[in-house]
């Protein structure tokens, strides 16, 4: 029971303090590429959640029997396996979404968040903290993608999660569906996070 506060921090740090997208700036490739629509962002977030949590469980469980020299190879094989599982499953059950996400599901393999968490956390920690860490990072990643997706979809298509919000008289901002829109939105959001964080710290000092 004593370790509980630690575990809670393992979970919550990924949500805000060490948010993979806004604070660590990791996983920028899917962040920028698939957030043209909120649902795509959510799907990508869930796919990453599946890979991150599954890999975390495996790596944490076998951490004691893996020799140091081959740990990266172990991580890579495990990650690649789960990514392929996620990709094939999406293609089989949700062909339209799979086509929309294109190569970015297979590319989760090279997402730095996943390899980074194995090296930094799960390969050194028991199952439970590893699980909490993986979940925290996943939720942090997912909410970031969904927020980006909502803002971009709203301005680029006048809808959120496919539900029309702004009506038919709204003229879409094409740029928001394109990479520049992703960069602009991400930049503004990171700036906003920094402002909030600074305010928080200033209040903490008082």
């Amino acid at each position: 029971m004593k370790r509980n506060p630690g575990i809670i921090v393992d979970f919550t740090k990924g949500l805000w303090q060490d948010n993979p997208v806004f604070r660590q700036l990791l996983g920028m490739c899917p962040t920028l590429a698939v957030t043209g629509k909120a649902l795509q962002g959510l799907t990508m977030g869930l796919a990453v959640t599946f890979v991150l949590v599954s890999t975390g469980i495996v790596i944490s469980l076998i951490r004691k029997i893996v020799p140091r020299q081959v740990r990266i190879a172990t991580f890579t094989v495990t990650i690649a396996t789960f990514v392929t599982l996620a990709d094939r499953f999406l293609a089989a059950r949700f062909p339209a979404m799979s086509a929309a996400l294109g190569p970015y599901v297979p590319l989760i393999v090279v997402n730095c968040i996943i390899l980074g968490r194995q090296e930094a956390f799960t390969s050194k920690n028991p199952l439970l903290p590893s699980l909490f860490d993986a979940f925290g990072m996943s939720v942090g990643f997912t909410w970031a993608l969904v927020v980006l997706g909502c803002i971009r979809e709203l301005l680029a298509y006048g809808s959120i999660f496919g539900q029309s919000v702004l009506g038919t008289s709204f003229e879409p901002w094409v740029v928001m569906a394109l990479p520049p829109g992703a960069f602009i939105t991400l930049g503004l959001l990171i700036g906003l996070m920094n402002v909030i964080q600074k305010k928080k710290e200033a209040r903490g000092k008082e």
Partner: protein
Amino acid sequence: MTAETEELAEQRLLEIRTSPHIRSPLATPQVMRGVLIALIPASAASIYFFRIQALLLILTSVVACMGVEALCQFLLKRPISVGDGSAAVTGLLLALVLPPGLPLYYVALGAAFAIIIGKQIFGGLGYNIFNPALIARAFLMAAFPGRLTTWLEPFTLKVVGSVDAITKATPLALMKFYSEPTPLKNLFFGNVAGSLGETCALALIIGAAFLLIKGYMDWRIPLSYLGIVFILSALIWKFAPGSGSPLFHLLSGGLLLGALFMATDPVTSPVTKTGRWLFGIGAGLLVIIIRNWGGLPEGVMYSILLMNAVTPLINRLTKPKPFGAAK
């Protein structure tokens, strides 16, 4: 605050310091006023050709830029400096690079983008990397490509917002896609389709002459920029007569407006003399490449924005070495 410091500076007219000496630049409000005056001919021409719509567009853009600037500075708790005229210049320049038929909502949106994203986010006047008016136009172009490429034939706009006006391709598009030349006389006097302020070459030249005489403008960038375009388009014309004569390239599109009033923006262009030559040459090359081999008929906006992006590098590359400094 600012008035006081200016007074203080004036009182200490006689000051002796050791080298290096940097000649004090002209005061911002003075230069901005000069630029606004220099843009009067072009604005007047646009109102003559595109009537009340041009006037409304200019007013919207200028008022929106100044309002957003004041609001931003108020929210960010910075000193409010709308009076220095830089926001007005941005607003006027933005209006002059927009198509005449653009609804005012988009104009206001572009103005807000110019000030917020183009300028205040970087820290305000003097800190921005890109020319705010052009970055706003690039944004509008990417956001509403259809509207930003719909041009009107002069004198055909009767009622604001009506669809009566006749749309027409710009001279550059006519040349590129339909091999249809436009008489140079029309290009010079401005009776062609295009952005508000770019059509009338005569008005732009008058304005630029004023700036040059007053010493508010560095001549190196316009000269090298226009010179390169002239020379290269002459060369290309020799081998491919369908590409348009060098004079056609000089007078058409946004080249004069861009070279005389945008590329010369002191904040976003190099500070060294060599740097300014490089800036002009680079921008000219880009225009020629985009106009002749790009997908778009016109490339002045992107040429200046791209050169804005490399300006810090040019500055570093051309920084003069102090005499006797070790390598």
